[in-house]
């Protein structure tokens, strides 16, 4: 009796605070739960979209295949033998193409998110550090001057991108690299390279120039196993590296001083992150050309649907991996017999979405 009375008294004395504290904790927990639930819902939705595009690309085309046939081809002679047409179209033509699209999209999305977070600029995409301009100039030289095609162009583009990125970094280096100086040097170098591209494009046969234009637009046409395999091989070390390095990204976003205070070795971490972002964008660009917009828009899309701030790396990678195959599918089937390169479609698909998002978010700065 006394005991219970005492207990009641204690509860009564501490009551208001504990109840308020409890309520607050519950609210926070609920908000976190909602956030987590939203994240997993969005992740699931993005994966579903990517899978849908994957399946549709494998099944539909010049030669439509029923879904069971596609699955039989994919699983090999494990269950039942597929027809040779199915094997040919699914395994030799469509699978490498759609895998290239998925991987390149993820790499673009990831690298765009890293750049935007590192340079703290919503306009920052891999073009800033010369990936696009370097790869494009090298590819145009390969196509128009050296008369190369296929994997040779991809390899040239990769070399061009990495050399240009290194050059820009070194030119911007002056006892450390500030984001602002990096951006400005990038502008200068990109302008010179685009002059080179324009010069080559205006001094050759128009048909050759148009082939170069297709590469410059970003295209998955004719991407086969060597492309998909090389891209996958490059991503094997890059994705885990990104995952490890990204832990300090959130701290870096607070600014250099705060990040140092939080125990992050700012300069070396930033260089490592930058290198990873450059490598991701470079291998993706080499594989499919400088597809516009995927790197720029994946992170804002991810952030907007997740309703969060911060880098949202996984979301950005998934958004990129969904955007690319969808765009390629649309490009192959939209205009009758003419096949549009994926780069045309990413712009037309991605842009209105970003615009809609900008128009409907009601707090300034959201979506950026």
């Amino acid at each position: 009796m006394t005991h219970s009375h005492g207990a009641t008294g204690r509860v009564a004395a501490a009551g208001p605070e504990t109840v308020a504290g409890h309520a607050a904790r519950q609210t926070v927990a609920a908000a976190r739960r909602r956030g987590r639930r939203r994240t997993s819902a969005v992740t699931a939705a993005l994966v579903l979209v990517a899978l849908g595009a994957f399946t549709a690309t494998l099944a539909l085309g010049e030669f439509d295949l029923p879904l069971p046939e596609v699955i039989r081809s994919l699983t090999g002679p494990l269950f039942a033998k597929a027809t040779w047409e199915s094997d040919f179209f699914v395994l030799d033509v469509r699978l490498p193409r759609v895998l290239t699209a998925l991987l390149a999209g993820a790499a673009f999305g990831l690298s765009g998110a890293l750049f935007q977070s590192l340079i703290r600029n919503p306009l920052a995409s891999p073009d800033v550090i010369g990936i696009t301009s370097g790869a494009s100039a090298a590819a145009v030289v390969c196509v128009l001057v050296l008369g190369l095609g296929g994997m040779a162009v991809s390899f040239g583009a990769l070399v061009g991108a990495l050399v240009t990125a290194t050059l820009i970094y070194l030119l911007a280096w002056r006892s450390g690299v500030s984001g602002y100086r990096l951006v400005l040097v990038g502008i200068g170098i990109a302008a010179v390279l685009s002059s080179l591209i324009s010069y080559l494009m205006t001094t050759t046969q128009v048909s050759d120039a148009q082939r170069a234009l297709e590469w410059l637009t970003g295209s998955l046409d004719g991407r086969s196993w060597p492309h998909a395999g090389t891209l996958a091989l490059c991503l094997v070390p890059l994705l885990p590296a990104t995952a490890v390095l990204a832990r300090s990204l959130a701290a870096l976003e607070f600014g250099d001083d705060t990040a140092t205070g939080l125990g992050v070795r700012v300069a070396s971490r930033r260089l490592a992150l930058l290198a990873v972002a450059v490598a991701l964008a470079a291998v993706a660009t080499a594989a499919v050309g400088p597809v516009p917009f995927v790197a720029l828009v994946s992170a804002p899309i991810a952030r907007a649907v997740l309703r969060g701030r911060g880098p949202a790396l996984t979301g950005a990678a998934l958004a990129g991996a969904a955007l690319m195959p969808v765009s390629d599918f649309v490009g192959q089937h939209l205009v009758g017999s003419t096949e549009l390169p994926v780069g045309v479609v990413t712009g037309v698909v991605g842009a209105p979405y970003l615009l809609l998002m900008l128009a409907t978010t009601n707090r300034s700065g959201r979506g950026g």
Partner: protein
Amino acid sequence: MRSSRGKLLSGLGATLCALVVAIAVSMGVGTRSIPLSTVVGSLFPFPPHDMDHLAVRESRLPRTALGVLAGAALGLAGAVMQGVSRNPLADPGILGVNAGAALFIVVGIDVFGINALNGYVWFGFVGAALAAFLVLAVSSLGRGGATPVRLALSGAAVAAALTSLTTAILLINVDAFDQFRFWRVGSLAGRDGSVIGEALPFLAVGAVLALASGRMLNALALGEDTARSLGRHVHRDRMWAALSVVLLCGAATAMCGPLAFVGLAVPHLARLVTGPDYRWILPYSMLLAPLLLLAADIVGRLAVRPSELQVGLMTPVLGAPVFVLLVRRRRLAEL
């Protein structure tokens, strides 16, 4: 402010002198060199079959005037754009001007069969204006209004969408691509005087608006809240500034094609000289940009005589090394 008023004024005077020299050289130099006395003579009535006089009157004069006007317009537009968006990556093209002009010109070639440079001008200008209007409309829809981030993102989005459409047409129509690839480089050659006359009113209004916006841009540079507490109507100011950019950059792009590097780099160069005060950045940009453009045009005419390289090719080749060097040398006045 980094330098005193007097120093900045004399620097402005020196830039003006350099520009005058560049104009004189631009009139005299080219596939055929013409002495200065003949250049001056051709500005007055002259014997009708004198080839030197004709060359100056019919080709060099419009070309030089175009260089000066387009350069000044792009320099001013670039400075205003960077001030409004507070983003070092913002060139006037961020309003979608270049992409809009390009799309309309390609449609003009593809659908209406336009094939003269003079015919491009109106298509280019209307396209530039519509694209910019779209960007501004979208970016000011949400509750926050046209904040720099929204402006940048919606500009990038509209530009990407329009460019994709342009590319789609170019990949399907070889003939359109054959014409368009030359326009896209950006050139001062082959435009006649009437083009300049048509664009002049737009340029004049745009220049007045831009030059008057120095104080406003200074206030905006302090941040939206501070600007508001200084008595600025932030939204209205941004719209005026955007209008001047559309007029200036739209007219320049319609006349010469997209010359992105000028609008992007020159304000940064001006900022290196003047510090962050837009009342100085604007006039410096207005004089430095045509200087760069004319110098590039002159070098382009001399580099591969008797042929020539378009100004759009030469501007970055000439400007970028200087730009990178200066960016490395100086302590940067950030936006």
